[in-house]
């Protein structure tokens, strides 16, 4: 079946099997491999992307459900000249990553979180990240990165 969606500002029309997941469409059809598959069961959040501005786990959506949607992946977050998004920069500054496998999902999840809570408390950040697992950092520096980015004044709502 034909699915048309806009990914990182570019319109894409792809021919997929009806049971193709959104994450498969992004990774295998559009070769945007920054979105990761960690668990296949919606537990780990590594596949988180933005669909029409809201965080979704792309391993739990069919590509067909994204028909006509605006999708933003980790590849679409930095500026065109490569300048990191303030959230990406905060993760780097605060050592919010080690192996980096969960990182794209983390960054996309908190991008959505800050839209709803522009000035979150530490507790709100921790609760907002309950759907994303990290096996390296122990979460502390991720939370610090989110708070730093939120309070930097550089995030455009």
């Amino acid at each position, binding site marked *: 079946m034909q699915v048309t969606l806009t990914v990182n500002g570019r319109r894409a029309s792809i021919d997929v*099997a009806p*049971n*193709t997941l959104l994450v*498969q469409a992004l*990774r*295998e059809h559009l070769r*945007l*491999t*920054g*979105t*990761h*598959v*960690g*668990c*296949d*069961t919606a*537990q*780990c959040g*590594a596949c988180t992307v933005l669909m029409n501005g809201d965080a979704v786990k792309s391993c739990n959506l069919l590509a067909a459900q994204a028909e006509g949607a605006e999708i933003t*992946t*980790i*590849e679409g*977050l*930095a500026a065109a000249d*490569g300048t*990191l998004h303030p959230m*990406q920069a905060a*993760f*780097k*500054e605060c*050592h919010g*990553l*080690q*192996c*980096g*496998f*969960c*990182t*794209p999902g983390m*960054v996309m999840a908190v991008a959505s979180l800050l839209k709803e809570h522009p000035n979150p408390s530490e507790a709100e950040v921790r609760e907002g990240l309950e759907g994303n*697992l*990290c*096996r*390296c*950092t122990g979460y502390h520096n991720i939370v610090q990165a989110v708070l730093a980015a939120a309070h930097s004044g550089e995030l455009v709502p």
Partner: protein
Amino acid sequence: MSATVLEEHGAAGVVGTRMLRREDPALLSGEARFVHDLVVPGALHMAVVRSPYAHARVMSVDVSAALGMPGVVAALTGADLAGEWASPMPCAWPVTADMQSPKHLPLALDEVCYVGDAVAVVLARSGAEAQDAAAAVAVDYEELPAAVDLEEAARDDVLAHLDAPSNRAYTWELVPDPEAVRRSAGQRPREQEAQAGAEAALRPDARAQVGHRDGRVRHIGWAVLQQLQRGPRCGPVHTCRHLHPGLPGQAGGPDRRLPEAAEADQGEQEGSPHGQVIHDTRGTLHG
């Protein structure tokens, strides 16, 4: 890289200072390449059928429906491969000389002992075809009581393995004040030790292997232990070469060889001229 850092900052400028990592921009922008991101031309893809039960007898495994599905090259059960394994999967860390380690084959024969224990694999031309066919494998289980609590397991009322007389693998003598030892020598109390034993990478099966005409195998993924333990199944260690792209969850990894690796060795035998990629971590993600 260290030499460069030293050249830039001098030894005195590095020690005791905060260093920002150079690999972060690629990891943060989606440009980093992990094993799952590699495209291996002609690769077979393998999906694993796993137990949904913590403990059960495997009454039957029927792969006939899977074999007829599009793109499927092979569908294998534990019984199919029982005569193929040189030995059960070894443990890389025999903690004590008398440690008891129940026989653990890459594909279960008649008993599954944890959620995620593998019972069959399907090899297909694409990952989606392998996963679709794996869903068509019919497994009949008879659920058994499971030992899920350390204290309860230690009483041996419920045995975790039907062929093991006790749930105790080994005994370490407790010192009088474990807390003092932990503070002084960095040892961990028992609960933490058990937790450490359950370490799991976010995507533990990240692995691809590529065969060459000279018989050598380029193995991309978890390295040292997997490599050392590979020998009994697929030949001498020197026939393999390991490559290291990004690997998920390197900060904490398993010290047992993962079943997926041994099953993948089988994929290599199944006639894929180029290699294979493994799919499906269901049941291997621990919380």
